[in-house]
């Protein structure tokens, strides 16, 4: 099952994509079906017409979906074979035969599954697609005769598994970038904990520390691992491995050509240790608080201030150097509000810069001003029209510096600008 929403055009359209898939899987006798719901696509692939084009339904057309499904046999509902046979024996052979029938008698006799599948097929009920996880690169696991429940036991088992795993990684000269611990509970429930590293890891204690942080965070936020009667199987898997770059701590300076001084060697190892300490800290904090809370700013190709820098997980590494600022671009503030705050302004003339403004219930007298710096909206990106912004750097009588902008232009007409331009404070300077 593939979710191809928004991706088909990359293959020349849905028909071309389906043709490519069928061609590649021709020796397995594969047929494709494309529809708005996974259930309908499944039904079309198995019970649809022979012509491939007829197994592709137009997107967002509920009537076409209903028409196409009506003629398919009830087995296309992906119900149990015996239920499908029993429905056929009562004369309900096609999906169209049951769509408009009263539901209660059918549910009473054949169970709720029939209409649950039918609703999912028609898009009336959502059924998520369960993704298939990639097979792990390396796995180590331990079984227990009786379930273990103590956190210390679980952590020490993970540490022990990490040692086994690191031996495997060392044999292949690789390090782990992404790891998962899968805990199988005695009653069949499965719990999965994922961790990522900013550099290839091959140190058992570092791996164990990452999972300790993660379990600590789970204990704090979700009340723990929900051990129930205990776990009888623990599996530690490397989901993504990378070639292990030799650690600088193990790097021999004498291997380098040319003479080096003792100071060089000390500096070299100090930098290596600092890099390791930084990566270790970022990994541990990302595991504890979530990768979305430990961030670095990456430059973006956008002139909109709020989109110029994108906060990305720090474990991705250091960002590239941003391109030089364009000629004539004004200064940017030290702090930026994620949501610009509206202000009231008083100006000499309607389209002039403000003489004073009120922000957070305090009046500020403008004594110095720089601008406007006009920033046009990204009309090629936004589906909805947006307004032009004129930015001003202003200083008030107390020496506080603000970054204000006026949204919209005087005299402009449009649905977005019914009451004239509006003013906002978007940033603050030191």
């Amino acid at each position, binding site marked *: 099952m593939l979710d191809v929403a928004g991706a088909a055009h990359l293959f020349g359209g849905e028909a071309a994509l389906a043709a490519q898939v069928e061609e590649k899987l021709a020796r397995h006798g594969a047929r494709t079906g494309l529809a708005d719901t996974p259930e309908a696509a499944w039904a079309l692939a198995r019970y649809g017409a022979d012509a491939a084009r007829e197994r592709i339904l137009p997107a967002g057309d509920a009537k076409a979906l209903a028409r196409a499904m009506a003629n398919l046999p009830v087995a296309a509902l992906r119900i149990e074979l015996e239920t499908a046979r029993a429905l056929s024996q009562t004369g309900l052979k096609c999906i169209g035969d049951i769509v408009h029938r009263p539901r209660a008698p059918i549910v009473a006799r054949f169970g709720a599954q029939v209409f649950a599948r039918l609703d999912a097929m028609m898009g009336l009920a959502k059924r998520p697609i369960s993704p298939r996880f990639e097979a792990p690169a390396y796995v180590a696991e331990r079984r227990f005769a009786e379930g273990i429940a103590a956190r210390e036991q679980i952590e020490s088992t993970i540490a022990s598994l990490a040692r086994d795993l690191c031996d495997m990684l060392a044999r292949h000269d690789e390090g782990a970038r992404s790891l998962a611990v899968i805990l199988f509970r005695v009653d069949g429930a499965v719990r999965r904990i994922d961790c990522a590293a900013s550099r290839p890891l091959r140190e058992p204690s570092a791996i164990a520390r990452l999972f300790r942080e993660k379990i600590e965070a789970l204990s704090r936020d979700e009340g723990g691992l929900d051990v129930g009667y205990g776990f009888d199987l623990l599996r530690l898997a490397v989901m993504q491995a990378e070639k292990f770059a030799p650690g600088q701590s193990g790097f021999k300076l004498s291997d380098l050509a040319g003479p080096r001084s003792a100071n060089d060697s000390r500096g070299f190892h100090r930098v290596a240790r600092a890099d390791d300490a930084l990566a*270790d*800290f970022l990994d541990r904090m990302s595991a504890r608080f979530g990768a979305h809370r430990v961030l670095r700013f990456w430059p973006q190709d956008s002139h909109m201030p709020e989109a110029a820098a994108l906060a990305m997980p720090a474990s991705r590494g250091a960002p590239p150097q941003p391109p030089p600022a364009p000629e004539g671009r004004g200064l940017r503030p030290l*702090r930026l509000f994620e949501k610009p705050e509206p202000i009231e302004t008083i100006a000499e003339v309607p389209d002039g810069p403000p003489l004073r403004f009120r922000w957070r219930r305090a009046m500020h007298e403008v004594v110095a001003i720089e601008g406007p710096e006009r920033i046009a909206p990204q009309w090629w990106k936004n589906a909805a029209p947006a307004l032009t912004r004129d930015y001003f750097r202003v200083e008030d009588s107390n*020496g*506080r510096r603000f970054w204000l902008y006026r949204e919209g232009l005087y005299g402009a007409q449009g649905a977005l600008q019914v009451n004239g331009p509006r003013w906002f404070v978007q940033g603050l*300077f030191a």
Partner: protein
Amino acid sequence: MSPSGRSERIGFLREAVARIEAGGSSLENKGLEDEATRAEARVRRRAAFFEIAPKTVADSPAAAGFALMAASRLGAGEGGPILWIAEEFALLESGVPHAPGLALHGVGWGDFVLMRLPRRADVFLALEEAIRARAFAAIVCEPSGLAESDARMIARRLAPAARASGARAILLRPPAGPRAPFVAPTPMRFEVAARPAPRPAAGRRPLPGFAAWRVRWTGPPGSLPGLEPGSVHDVDLSGEDFLSAALSLRLPFGLDGAGADSRAA
């Protein structure tokens, strides 16, 4: 005034250069430079934990700018990025550090890591971990408030940990007052307010200046020789290039123990 203010700024910079050439620079003399370098080394050894508070809530951006200037100045040449640990609520109130704006203060995109944490306890936990990690040029910690228990933790655990590990940690706290006094057992305690900066005149209204602060030293009496508690000093970064200005700025308040000498070109 030109639309971007560029010609006025160039004129302003020319004036600043002329002032420096006329003998205004404190670092132009080699002997002084060496002395400043030695003083910096002494500062780095002593300046383990800073506590910086804005004078009022409205001065928070000024205090943040001063903290960033101190972080980039103290961490220069140390290696590792600057870590900014902030509570979500503080970011909501004061805004998120903006990468293009940080660059103006001498902090590159790659030299900055931001941690946005939902709870104050998490902020202090991360600060303690960062101090122990010794992986950062400097650490700035920005909680949205300070409870009594937080003050005790800072005084008894965090400041001593920073001193022991040699990390440079800066607590950027909310305004101090009788009910929320300065808490860190360190001489590096400052109250920062925004101050009108020297600015180029242009047309009817002048252009805004660059970063400028009025800083009050609030360290314990006698902890820095020659400084009186409550003494006020003016510090400013002139010119468009904050980076070079910040690097040529002598640290205020005689942090080298030589007495107050706050002004810089």
